[in-house]
């Protein structure tokens, strides 16, 4: 029971990170129908920017952890958004309305570029930092002394995710930008005919996705404390899995999918084998797509003949 509870907490934390990345996939797919393959690497850039910002802030002598974290988060969101915007502008916009495979190949190219760029400018070696948030709350103790606890950092991650999710859901539901986004998702051409600047909406969608990926990157950094230029690939594929599992195009779906993937991975690693935890996640992806092609919260699709 205690062990179960511990895996549940770990899974929720991991799932929050996946969910934040998944939103970027789901929003972009919803609007322009492409898998932004470089999104995982945007997350990786976000983690690196967070690392640099953290080191910089520490060097400047800001030691109050909440303030430092907040600053890191804001810096990471701004810089990473710029990356998201640039990637769309350079690699995807010239291909708008082109053949379906072209943007996908371009995105794979961009993913390779980002990985190797970070490898060149930041080095290939694994970066490790001391934990900045320590401590936690013990919840339950089993007879043989195993203590299930929720670490403070896990609380921070889950709370930040919930807050950001609420903010972004409100943006999409209430603001004129959100309305334009939903219109573009329904019918891009029609939205353009009605005077919506679709390029701007798409750009802002990439910016929003990148900002959330930056948050995920920052959380990843403070949670695990280690990163390298390759973390984007696996995290990206899993986050995409989450987006598909939840129903692509749906924001709550992405979050739900992220949490499910996180839980599956945590329980698989906790009870079976950690080597095969990625196999579990990928198998879920395959099974989900095969038996539930529109995801849990997606709209059903009727084949038109």
């Amino acid at each position, binding site marked *: 029971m205690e062990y179960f509870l511990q895996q549940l907490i770990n899974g929720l934390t991991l799932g929050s990170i996946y969910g934040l990345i998944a939103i970027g996939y789901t929003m972009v797919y919803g609007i322009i129908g492409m898998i932004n393959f470089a999104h995982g690497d945007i997350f990786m850039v976000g983690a*690196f920017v967070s690392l640099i910002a953290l080191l910089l802030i520490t060097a400047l002598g800001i030691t109050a952890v909440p303030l430092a974290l907040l600053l890191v988060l804001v810096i990471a969101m701004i810089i990473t958004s710029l990356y998201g915007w640039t990637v769309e502008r350079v690699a995807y916009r010239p291909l708008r309305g082109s053949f379906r495979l072209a943007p*996908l190949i*371009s995105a*794979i190219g961009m993913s390779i570029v980002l990985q190797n760029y970070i490898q060149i400018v930041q080095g290939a*070696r694994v970066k490790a930092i001391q934990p900045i948030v320590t401590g936690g709350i013990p919840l339950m103790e089993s007879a043989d002394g195993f203590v299930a606890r929720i670490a403070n950092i896990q609380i921070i991650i889950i709370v930040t995710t919930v807050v950001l999710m609420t903010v972004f859901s409100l943006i999409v539901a209430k603001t004129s930008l959100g309305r334009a986004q939903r219109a573009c998702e329904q019918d891009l051409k029609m939205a353009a005919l009605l005077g919506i600047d679709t390029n701007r909406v798409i750009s802002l969608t990439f910016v929003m996705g990148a900002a959330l990926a930056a948050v995920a990157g920052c959380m990843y950094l403070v949670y695990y404390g280690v990163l390298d230029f390759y973390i984007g690939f696996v995290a990206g594929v899993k986050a995409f899995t989450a987006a598909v599992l939840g129903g692509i195009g749906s924001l709550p779906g992405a979050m739900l999918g992220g949490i499910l993937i996180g839980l599956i991975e945590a329980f698989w690693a906790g009870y079976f084998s950690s080597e095969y935890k990625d196999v579990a996640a*990928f198998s879920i992806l395959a099974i989900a*797509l095969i038996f539930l092609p529109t995801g849990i919260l997606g709209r059903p699709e009727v084949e038109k003949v």
Partner: protein
Amino acid sequence: MSSPARQPFGLAALKDAAIAALITLGLFAPVMGLRTAQDNSGLTIVENWWPVLVAVAVVFFGRLILNAFFWSDNGFKVTDLIPRGEATAKVGETLAKLLAPVLIIVAIGLPLIPGLDRYYIDLGILVLTYVMLGWGLNIVVGLAGLLDLGYVAFYAVGAYSFALIATVVIPNYAPGLELWAFWICLPLAGLLAAFWGIILGFPVLRLRGDYLAIVTLAFGEIIRIVLLNWYEFTGGPNGINRIPDATFFGLEFKRNNGFADFFGLDYSSTQKFIFLYYLILVLAFLTNFATIRLRRLPIGRAWEAMREDEIACRSLGLSIVKTKLTAFALGAMFGGFAGSFFATKQGFISPESFSFIESANILAIVVLGGMGSQLGIAIAALVMVGGFEYFREFEQYRMLVFGLAMVLIMIWRPRGLISSRTATVFLKEKKTVSADMVAEGRG
């Protein structure tokens, strides 16, 4: 790109360049200018401003110059700097057609050039391996229109099948056949890969487009992770060693009593590589020959018809299940052959060689070459693999440039180098179909 500059060197041009420079600064300053490095006390930051400055300057002045000299006419785009359009496409395609016989002659004659460095033979082998993989994947992606991002899985199945049969099964159960290992295992590896093509093809029959891409990617990763972790069977990350060399139909390439003695030649270590070169050349030509033949058969037409319109196919009695699975199986089979060759050439395989990036490379070759075009794929493989292999010294930058090239070529020619389709049967005159009309498939 918007081009605000009506008058060269106007204020607008300056503003535009300044904004671009500012964005560049924002991108590069934190990530490139501040390098994280390990020292005794942990991670610290090392400042490194020169490259950032150079980048910002290049963007600023580059944009200024572009504004002044290229964007003065309204509506001009960066992408216009590269030739495109029907006319250039036609010229390019005619040139490409003339190139085909030249390429074949060079491919056959290359190892015969006296005094050629072995490096070039190795490079030739590498390029040909990718040509073969590209042609194999082309059946699935180019003809049948099924987007497969996990093709490397079949390459891995072929390589591991060969390695395991040659190092475990044959010595234990059929001793005496060691010299024939490659020739026994090659067809087996192809069949096993085809079998896996069907196994992995079944569950994804209903999936379309990007979903199919992502599930095939997942399958590719699953196979790699299993190879990595199933120590008892695959040797885990250490892989499999001492895979026997391919023999010239039973004749080994060794100093005594081998190929050289049999034909009365002087022994040279290059002979083995020349043999390997011709081996992969023959395998690649076999793939090409089979693909060209298959395209003209009902099965090939069914693949292309499925790419064009799946529902119409169903209304004409074509079973989508059979059509898709044969495409998967045949594509996988050629991948398996290539995998066997890779295993025997390297003598050592490990899961590292079968990562996602290989699938992406092969797919990039197919798409950059022009889906469905055999010649385009060969040229793309030559440029992307041969060209970049040439820059080995700049290892890190090589992949960066590779990625950029993928993006640029897509922007330049979204349908690839040779994008027109040749008809498979004709009544009066054989015509080509321009790329605008050819569908890419939804699968």
